[in-house]
């Protein structure tokens, strides 16, 4: 096959555009990762969380989260059986350094790790005026920092309080499920450091993932199910008082 120089010059930009499309299905730097083969979520076992805050610290280090803002945090619930204000919650510094000992031993107490729920029908991506926040084909809600206007509509739309405006970049920020790690076959920073295995990254499309067995044998729940966001942060042992 012969090709003239003129034809080659015409074809080269077209080939470059086509190559962009080819690469689009493969996250940067992970040529063997195919987005359509995965559907990510997370399993959070409240019965196992000890409120040590390792996950919060690991996340802040891994993702350079500015002080005072949180991609993930831990809440401590203290629930008494009755009365006005029977639900007490605290999360000092997002639970980063653990929790002070409870003075009052009345009622039950437990820890709830929180993060972006990576909703399949996420209200935050719905409202973004330019599509800077989007759901990747593998089910992770991400933010394109180079495109975000910083209008904060997504922050208002998130029912779980998972988003914030990064004061340095002036763009919306949230948990990316350590996308830079999971596309390389690693787990998230928070799951990596959790000493009790209370957090488990789950690939719902992978038949070999132990999450399937867990979901079959346990009663799991998502946060605020009435909002029908298609949340993919599944909680085991979730108390009705948790919001």
């Amino acid at each position, binding site marked *: 096959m012969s090709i003239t120089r003129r034809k080659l010059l015409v074809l080269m930009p077209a080939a470059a555009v086509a190559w962009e499309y080819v690469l689009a299905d493969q996250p940067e730097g992970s040529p063997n990762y195919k987005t359509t083969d995965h559907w990510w979520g997370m399993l959070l076992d409240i019965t196992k969380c000890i409120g040590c805050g390792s996950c919060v610290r690991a996340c802040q280090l891994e993702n350079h989260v500015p002080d005072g803002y*949180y991609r993930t945090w831990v809440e401590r619930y203290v629930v008494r059986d009755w009365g006005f204000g029977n*639900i007490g919650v605290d999360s000092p510094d997002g639970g980063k350094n653990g929790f002070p000992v409870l003075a009052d031993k009345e009622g039950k107490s437990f820890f709830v790790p929180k993060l972006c729920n990576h909703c399949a029908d996420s*209200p935050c991506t719905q409202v*973004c005026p*330019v*599509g800077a926040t989007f759901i990747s084909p593998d089910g992770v809600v991400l933010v394109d920092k180079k495109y975000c*206007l910083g*209008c904060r509509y997504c922050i*208002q739309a998130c029912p779980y309080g998972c988003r914030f405006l990064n004061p340095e970049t002036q763009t919306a920020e949230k948990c990316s499920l350590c996308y830079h790690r999971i596309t390389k076959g690693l787990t998230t920073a928070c799951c990596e450091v959790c000493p009790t295995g209370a957090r488990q990254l789950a690939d719902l499309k992978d038949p070999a993932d132990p999450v399937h067995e867990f979901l079959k044998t346990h009663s799991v729940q998502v946060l605020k199910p009435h909002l029908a966001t298609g949340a993919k942060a599944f909680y085991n042992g979730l108390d009705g008082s948790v919001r």
Partner: protein
Amino acid sequence: MNFDGFMYPNEVELQWSVLIVLYPFLTGLVAGAFILASLERVFLVEAVKPTYRLALLTALAFLIVAPLPLQLHLGHPERSFEMYLTPHRSSAMAMFGFVYLWYLMAVLVVEIWLDYRKDIVLMMQSFKGLKKCMYWTMTLGSTNISNESRRVDNRVGWLITLIGIPSAFLLHGYVGFIFGSVKANPWWSTPLMPVVFLFSAMVSGIAAVMLLYMILSKIHGREIDQRCVDTVARYLLYTFLIDFSLEMLDLIHRIYEADESFRSLDFMVHTRLYTSQVVIQIVAGTVVPIALLGITQVLRLNANVRKRLYAIAGSLTLIGIFAMRWNVVIGGQLFSKSFLGYTTYKMGFVAREGLLTAIVLTLLPLVILWVLVNLLPPWPEKNAAVVSPSTPRQLAD
């Protein structure tokens, strides 16, 4: 620590400031003023004619400024044009950009231009130098003001107003939808929100034009057309009654239904929002002006007393509607989405999103209106004075 109870850690800081309060307030004035103008044009309410052009100019002045608070609020204002270039179709905010542009360019500017075209041509002919050049530019090269062309102007203008009414409804109803469609926030999430926003917009726009008409008449030493202000005040009362009924319906529905958010919201209204919601919005900004306007309908008061009551009622109305916007925007961020805590809003004075900026942005439309009124006088008599006696002859030529 500036919060009580428990807030999700990222919620402590408020995201939408006083500038976002200002934004629906300004667009509301635009929609309301335009709807008042359409009363004369489409519904042939002759009595409000003296306010027709002023209402259009008021709408334009406020519409020009309306996007500024948004721009100042954005983390990256330089990227805002992306909303037009690559809009996200499922986003209420993105689509609003087009509604705004449609309303500004296809409705308001065209209607004003058609209505003023003859005056612009006459003024171009009566002035010299830079002013002539300016008015010549404003004619857009269309200098034919024969009766036939005026007839076409009127017909097209009527059509534009007809399209403009649903557009004005859309403009502000849509602002309500931006808030009302946020299901994460029970303070905002109600299908009544667009309707309440729309009627409150009409209330604020009518009150603003009524006040501006009375103030400008005083400044220019003209007599206030009593029949006109009586009619405008009557429409203000009717619209206000609908608006108040809708807001009360929303309130009663919330109290009776008492869903999971109710206890939290009720506590907020009785504490942090008490002054702005109960005292300023409901009592001083709604009940009192409705009572004052009602008195003018029931009692036979002399013209001067009526005018004074209208002025007081109009001013209180604007304060009340501003408070309503405040309570929606700021109130909607004071409570935690966990319903277990409350934060506070601290407004800076000299800051990008501070009080001073808000004051400047509130006054800016009035400055623009002053320029517009001088450029395109809304009073027919004044136009006659501007045009020299020789002009009709030139026209005939």
